[in-house]
């Protein structure tokens, strides 16, 4: 539920991901396009158009998030177009604003109206923290402001030991462990604090894939918990399906 195409290398990314999905047995990927730290509206439109294109090219494989830069009001039209006309089923916020910035509020309120999940990039870095990069504390702030919204905190906020506890009580925050930090204990630690019910399987493809799958395979949790993480929670969150 967390993969990307990057502006300027969209076809290369999509081709690699399609190949990986076939080789590794992936049935669904949820794409968001990324176009730089503070993308202009035309860049946002362009990258979302690529996502729409891949949704059409691979209708059984690809779902789409609409990427927005809330610094631009025009992105509200982009969101409407991508969800209402294009059939995207989520919204993505990256690093143009911290996720609890009031600039985001109208976008979150629109997502609540659409009843679609919101994928929030989050990462606390010891070195190299970006200017508007959210941390788990920012995620907790916004989750408390909008309890009726469903948020996904990406990358376990970079480090499960600082990222999980701030959102433990925010039941509307799901957690993905996408990305290339693949420590042996991350899954078990996260399950311990929030339960498997709130963990979803993301990878950050084309940035990584197998390391994330290996984490689930090796985690000493039950098979049922692994199934929840690998697909059941995502199906429930995005498709509102009741999974037995």
């Amino acid at each position, binding site marked *: 539920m967390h993969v990307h195409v990057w502006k300027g290398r969209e076809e290369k990314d999509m081709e690699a991901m399609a190949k990986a999905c076939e080789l*590794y047995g992936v049935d669904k990927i949820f794409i968001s396009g990324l176009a730089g730290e503070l993308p202009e509206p035309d860049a946002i439109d362009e990258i979302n158009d690529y996502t729409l294109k891949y949704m059409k090219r691979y209708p059984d494989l690809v779902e789409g998030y609409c990427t927005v830069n809330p610094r631009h009001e025009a992105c509200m039209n982009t969101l409407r177009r991508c969800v209402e006309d294009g059939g995207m089923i989520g919204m993505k916020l990256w690093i143009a604003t911290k996720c609890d910035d009031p600039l985001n509020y109208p976008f979150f309120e629109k997502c609540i109206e659409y009843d679609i999940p919101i994928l929030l990039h989050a990462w606390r870095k*010891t070195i190299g923290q970006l200017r508007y990069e959210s941390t788990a504390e920012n995620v907790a702030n916004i989750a408390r402001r909008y309890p009726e919204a469903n948020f996904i905190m990406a990358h376990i906020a970079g480090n499960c030991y600082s990222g999980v506890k701030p959102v433990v009580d925010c039941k509307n925050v799901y957690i993905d462990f996408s990305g290339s930090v*693949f420590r*042996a204990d991350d899954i078990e*630690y996260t399950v311990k604090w929030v339960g498997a019910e709130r963990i979803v399987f993301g990878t950050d493809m084309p940035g990584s894939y197998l390391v994330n799958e290996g984490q689930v*395979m*090796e985690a000493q949790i039950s098979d049922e918990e692994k199934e929840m993480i690998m697909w059941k929670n995502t199906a429930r969150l995005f498709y509102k399906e009741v999974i037995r």
Partner: protein
Amino acid sequence: MEKYRPTLLQGGNPMSALDLNCMLGRWPFRKLRHSNTEDLLNTHRINRITGGCISSLDSVFYNDPYEGDEDLAEILKDMPGYVHIQSVNPILSFTVDDVIKGAESLGTKGVKIYPCYHQYDFDAPELEPLFRFCEEKDIPVFVQLRMEDYRADYLVLQKQFGAKDIQALLEKYPNNRFVLLTARLNEIQALAPVINESDKVLFDTSGLKDGLFSVEAVVEKIGTDKLAYGSMYPLFCLKSTLLLVEKAQLTEAEKKKILFENAESFLGKSFFGR
């Protein structure tokens, strides 16, 4: 909903492997849930790993690293197939004496350095006596380029190294045998011309986390002879590093080389007691 069911939750490694880069001990920055001897052996057994090179995590942080290796030597008495790699800090003046003592008393067969935590450069003069001694005795030097992801460092920041630093090391000490651990894909790609000219360098796979098809990308640049499986267990998820090789679009013969033949041919079959 059956169509969303992943296909890879079952199954194991179809061929056996050696693990060039695993450790036992404690880690000061977080609780390790599966770090004792039984955990390591179980995880290796499940994944058909039959042996490898083990070093002491404790020694990385001890004032006297030798004390961690004494403890590890006791454990390894009951672990046939595993080779003891001695952890040293070459900044300490008694390092060569410790290496001599380790080989004689503890049965160590290689040395491992941690410039990332011991905070020296590869051109530090203190390294020369150790590397000269290892060259004379043909002792392989394992270089742990990094341990956990820098971005998740806690309390102590690792010193960072890149391709230029590794190149300088290989050029300054062309006669030493180096096993370079946890190098990144972009570093190996950048170093390809140097690596392809040397028969004294082996990389492990534990740092190839970035991008799809990273093992394939390394093989494209340097071939299959200078890459060997290493896990960084218990810090990294072993299954993750193993999948990178298992699922690579390589022939079975190429995977076999990476999983154990290259380690044996670089270090010698007798190194692993075979």
